[in-house]
């Protein structure tokens, strides 16, 4: 299947300041695609170029078969956006916002359905300015999907939300995908990217520095992981013959095997094959956060 978003060497400057230098990636239909990176890396600039809200200076971009530089208006009908920095008038009511936005591109479900579906019925007559941060985000999600978009951009959905609202928002994001839209999610929360995204592009210093599944990123960048278990068996030298294993240390009954790649599976298989079935086999591996810090070169 052809990707629905193709970005090749995207570049964008504000005056003489280069905000995005070289960003390339593709997004497949049905994915939740994450864009992860530190503040000022160029994430928002990138997704705004894809939505035709900013004009890229260089590179090729195709979104749903449209070039956002020239076909922004056709494109916007088919996408939904939640922008990092946007608002509604404080005195606009929730239902008025939904009615207005659904009438702008009248191809989705009725706004009443959307109101219901995203749990806003209770706040139907509340003014935007009186909503809590989480409720405002919920409304923005509803507005982003009110035109039944094929592709939804979410830029820092959960910044400023309490942990409960963040988790609730994750549920909403999965719901968008389950309703049939592809999602591009900008975030700088690792747990969010790990929990939601099928693939993640790590953007740092104006370029994509890594792109993979969160598993893949951990594999490639996390360096070593450790498997520990306890055994009385004296000879474990066969473990050292595994490609994945670098070192083996013993402290009494306690064995620590250090290595890379699919370490746990290999070690476990080998142990079982040699008749050892340790009840306390554990793996300690790097999290996406460690990976992020490694890739973006920031020390803890």
């Amino acid at each position: 299947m052809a990707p629905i978003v193709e970005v090749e060497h995207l570049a964008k400057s504000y005056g003489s300041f280069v905000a995005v230098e070289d960003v390339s990636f593709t997004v497949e239909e049905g994915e939740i695609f994450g864009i992860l990176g530190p503040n000022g890396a160029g994430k928002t600039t990138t997704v705004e170029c894809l939505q035709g809200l900013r004009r890229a200076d260089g590179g090729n971009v195709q979104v749903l078969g449209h070039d956002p530089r020239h076909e922004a208006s056709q494109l916007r009908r088919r996408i939904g956006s939640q922008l990092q920095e946007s608002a509604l008038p404080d005195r606009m009511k929730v239902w008025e916002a939904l009615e207005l936005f659904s009438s702008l591109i009248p191809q989705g479900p009725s706004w009443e359905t959307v109101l219901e579906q995203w749990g806003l019925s209770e706040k139907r007559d509340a003014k935007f300015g009186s909503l809590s941060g989480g409720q405002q985000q919920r409304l923005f999600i509803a507005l982003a999907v009110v035109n039944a978009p094929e592709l939804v951009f979410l830029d820092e959905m959960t910044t400023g939300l309490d942990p409960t609202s963040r988790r609730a928002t994750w549920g909403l994001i999965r719901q968008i995908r389950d309703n049939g839209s592809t999602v591009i999610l900008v975030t700088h929360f690792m747990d969010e990217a790990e929990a939601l995204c099928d693939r993640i592009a790590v953007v740092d210093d104006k370029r994509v520095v890594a792109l993979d599944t969160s598993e893949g990123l951990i594999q490639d960048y996390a360096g070593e992981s450790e498997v520990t278990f306890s055994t009385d068996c004296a000879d474990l030298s066969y473990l050292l013959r595994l490609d994945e294993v670098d070192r083996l240390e013993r402290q009494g009954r306690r064995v620590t095997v250090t290595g890379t790649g699919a370490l746990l599976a290999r070690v476990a298989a080998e142990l079982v094959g040699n008749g050892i079935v340790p009840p306390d086999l554990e793996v300690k591996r790097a999290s996406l956060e460690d990976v992020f810090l490694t890739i973006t070169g920031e020390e803890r």
Partner: protein
Amino acid sequence: MHTLVRLSWVELKLFLREPLTVMFSLALPLIILFVLGGVFGNEPSQPGEQLVYRGVGAITYYVPAYLALVVASVCVISIPTHLAGNRERGVLKRFHASSVTAAAVAGAELTVAFVVSAISGVLLLIAAQLAYDFEPADSIPGVLGVFALLVVGFAAFGIFLGAVLPTARAAQAVGMLVWFVMLFLGGAGPPPEVLTDAMRTVSDFTPLWHAVRMMHDVWLGLDAGLAWVIFGGIAVVSAGLGLRFFRWE
């Protein structure tokens, strides 16, 4: 077209929920009319006295002048503040991302200005009719036509201010300043005949001065000629610059 209607309707409701702008647009011109009417009465200047109010009574002078003023109040204070505030807070960007065009944003402002000015103008006429005795309009279609032209011109001017001023605070400050200068020197405050030459020079640069002349033309049956051209010029230039400098964020 559909978008324009929807957006205008929502914007109109939002306008009416803003107590300050409602007060400014609807109540203030009325208050000033009654203060000035109370002070100056409605006797035309007599032969031999200094000619003021272009030779008609104060109320006969002020009623058409205030029809122009209500339009200016709506357009010069509330439009720039509203537009710049919406840009500053990211509302315009939100609209832009959902396919709203700049023409629809401007059109909605114009529509709201039209409706609110019309309400305000009618209130003013009713109040003046109840309280005072003044000369009726020479040409009612003329008054309606000029009123519409003034809304278009002042709305363009307001949209221009909203486009170039970066924040709601700046827009409100500038809008107020322009409004007060126009109130005092634009022919809707003290009788123009008593202004100093320096003040009169400033008057010539305010759109309201020319707007008042135009309204007087059709109300009193005068001919101010050049005012129409100048006001038209201000409107066209404002519209052009407004479009040129319009920004979503």
